[in-house]
């Protein structure tokens, strides 16, 4: 694509974009049926750099948009992709409730553990004590745990992958999109401009791959809490029994005049 990409050279969003492009192209659904939503931030620009329909909305609001689209058009494959500030901060409420809606929506989070676009402030996932312009003393808040929260909210598919591992990313992204239900993927994304701690090298030292998904949610929860010298990546939870909510087809099936007249149960309304 001949497009000016607004990311810094070396940004973790580039490999995420490449993986997503590959996975979406190979998806067993027609390209025209894929719709991306995003919010605001560097990661939220992702849909602009992929050849699919998209609704790039407001900061934090990619998920209610995705919900509206999915409810209106169950035939579309809906993927919401945005940053950690967008999905977990401004959109934190929607994150919890979108998972609860039991719709087939894929939630992808480019988690650089900072606010990139606004120049490096703390995000919900920033480590305790990390310093930046708005937190000169160091971040005082407990980092938010996306995977634990997603599991607690009832997400039937929860995974973590790493922007520095293309193969792993492709595999996890593919699985999450093909999963029928709300799926959450936290993608560890180095931000070369503002996050000098959680770098490619920092992650490479610590990451290890889960061999296979845990058998129950308790086990998944336990693994999801691990963060430190060792950090697991992979599919943390995949509920094979999960049943999506049924959505009735409404698109191009307008309500008829007869149906309205029947609802009204009266003759007066039928005058023209």
């Amino acid at each position, binding site marked *: 694509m001949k497009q000016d990409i607004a990311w810094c050279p070396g940004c973790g969003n580039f490999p995420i974009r490449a993986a997503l492009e590959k996975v979406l192209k190979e998806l067993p659904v027609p390209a025209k049926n894929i*719709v991306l939503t995003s919010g605001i931030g560097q990661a939220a620009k992702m849909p602009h750099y992929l050849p699919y329909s998209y609704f790039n*909305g407001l900061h934090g609001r990619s998920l209610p948009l995705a919900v509206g689209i999915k409810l209106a*058009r169950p035939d579309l494959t809906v993927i919401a992709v945005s940053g950690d500030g967008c999905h977990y901060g401004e959109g934190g409420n*929607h994150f919890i409730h979108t998972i609860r809606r039991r719709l087939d929506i894929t939630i992808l989070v480019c988690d650089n553990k900072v606010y990139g676009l606004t120049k490096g402030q703390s995000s919900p996932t920033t480590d305790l004590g990390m310093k930046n312009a708005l937190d000169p003393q160091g971040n005082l808040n407990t980092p938010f745990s996306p995977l634990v929260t997603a599991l607690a909210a009832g997400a039937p598919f929860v995974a973590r992958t790493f922007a520095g591992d293309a193969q792993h990313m492709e595999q996890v992204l593919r699985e999450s999109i093909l999963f029928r239900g709300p799926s959450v993927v936290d993608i560890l994304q180095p931000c070369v401009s503002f996050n000098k701690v959680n770098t490619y090298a920092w992650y490479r030292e610590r990451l290890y791959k889960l061999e296979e998904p845990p058998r129950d949610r308790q086990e998944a929860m336990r693994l999801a809490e691990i963060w430190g010298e060792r950090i697991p990546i992979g599919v943390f939870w995949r509920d094979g029994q999960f049943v999506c909510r049924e959505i009735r087809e*409404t698109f191009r099936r307008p309500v008829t005049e007869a149906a*309205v007249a029947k609802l009204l149960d009266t003759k*007066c*309304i*039928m005058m*023209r």
Partner: protein
Amino acid sequence: MEFNVLIGGEAGQGMFSVELELSETLSRLGYPFFATKNYMSRIRGGHNYHMIRVADRPVHALSGKPWDLVIAMDSAETERRHRPSLAADGIFLGADRVGQIEAEARETFRDPTASSTILAGLILACIGAEPSASRPLAPDESAARALAKGGEFAARWGLAARRVITPRPGDRCKLDGNQAIALGALMGGCQFVAGYPMTPATSIMHYFASVASEIPVHFEQAEDEIAALNMALGASYAGLRSMVATSGGGFALMTEAVSLAGMTETPVVVIDAQRPGPATGLPTRTEQGDLNFVLHAGHGEFPRVIFAPGSIEEAISLTRRAFDVADRWQIPVFILTDQYLADSVQVMEGRVPTKMLRRDYPVFEAGYRRYAITDTGVSPLTYPGLSEARVEVDSDEHTEDGKITEDLDLRVRMVDKRLRKLEGLRKEAVMPSRAGDRRAPTVLVSWGSNRQIVEEAVEALRAEGIAVSSVHFGQVYPLTAPMARGLARKRLICIENNATGQFGQLLRRELGLKVAHRILKYSGECFTVAELVERVRKILG
């Protein structure tokens, strides 16, 4: 001839059931009537009352005359508050009498709720309604017996045929304001509503939720109003005509997404059923305090249309129209109603356009540009998945194909494109409706739900020989020069349910019209005809 009834008591004592039973039977018997309620924000206790005006001609407001019948479901409060406004020959039915009816319901019908039906039967007997006429219309045998039992009580207490009112034959239906809005939305092709409950808008959502099993519409209860409007925009983007309904406090949360609709040119209809503010205000009372807010909601500059229906007919027709306007011009369209209109039940007179509106589903080639710059400002609109054409929509300033841009010349062209729609919107604006003597030097100006109160007041004033007319704005924005025709040299009296005369100010700003006098009410209650007549008389000396 008319009969004015008030039924008062504590929340939960069944006044609403009496209103429902009575209004249902009245409308089936062909009586014109108007009913509205005054209630507190609580589920039990307090003091609520329902007001029903039955007449032999169409009525669409509270008369404000002394009550012909007051029914007290409680022991003291209704009597204390409302007995002083009982007519000299009025009937007061106190707690002892209501107690007898309740006993009858328990003993004969083995159903305490039957007392509502008995009371409805009693009121019907007061206006001389034939029990035999209502009998076949009752939903079941026991309801029919309860209605007849009400007639027996009326006869026993000497109330039967106290004021005989003759019904008017003809097909009519009764609706409250929110039902009318919901119906208008269905006729406008609306298939998606998202919302978060808030009085007095909630029953619009109820309506959609309850019909969703029978017809292809969807209601989604959102986690908050921010989500609600974003969901509606998502659904609209995907191809369904969509709507949200809320009150001022919820609308405050939606303003961010209103701006998003403006920038992305996504059609959507937003209902603000106003209640007194600021903040949570008086949750169950009425006011027209949100005009300025809705007028200015959302940051940045973009076109919008605001309708403010003044009757059940207008609630249907303007809501229906709102979907058409939103779709054709790809803008947010607002409907301003209020608790008074939302909760008032009346018989619908006159013709309503009922033809269902349909949208097109145009298909484009790859290379389709969502924001192509056009003379009208309207770009071709289609939906994802219909062809290889990609629908690329963006909240940032964007290029014609929906990509983020910082090209500042293009920014200017895009702003101009969006604002150009206003020219077309002005051309198809809904003209205000006028009533009374057009030559009269004084004009009563209203917008929204006050219309029919004002129109009846004008009739009453003219009957006294006072020359007045009225003009009602069903579209409050944009206001256009033709709307002001003939008004510049008149003495304008603007009637509003707010404290600062917001519409009067808008008339001045947009049309240069000067309002000579204002009649404002912001206690949380609606005007009555008698009260309005009195206040106009005072101004005219």
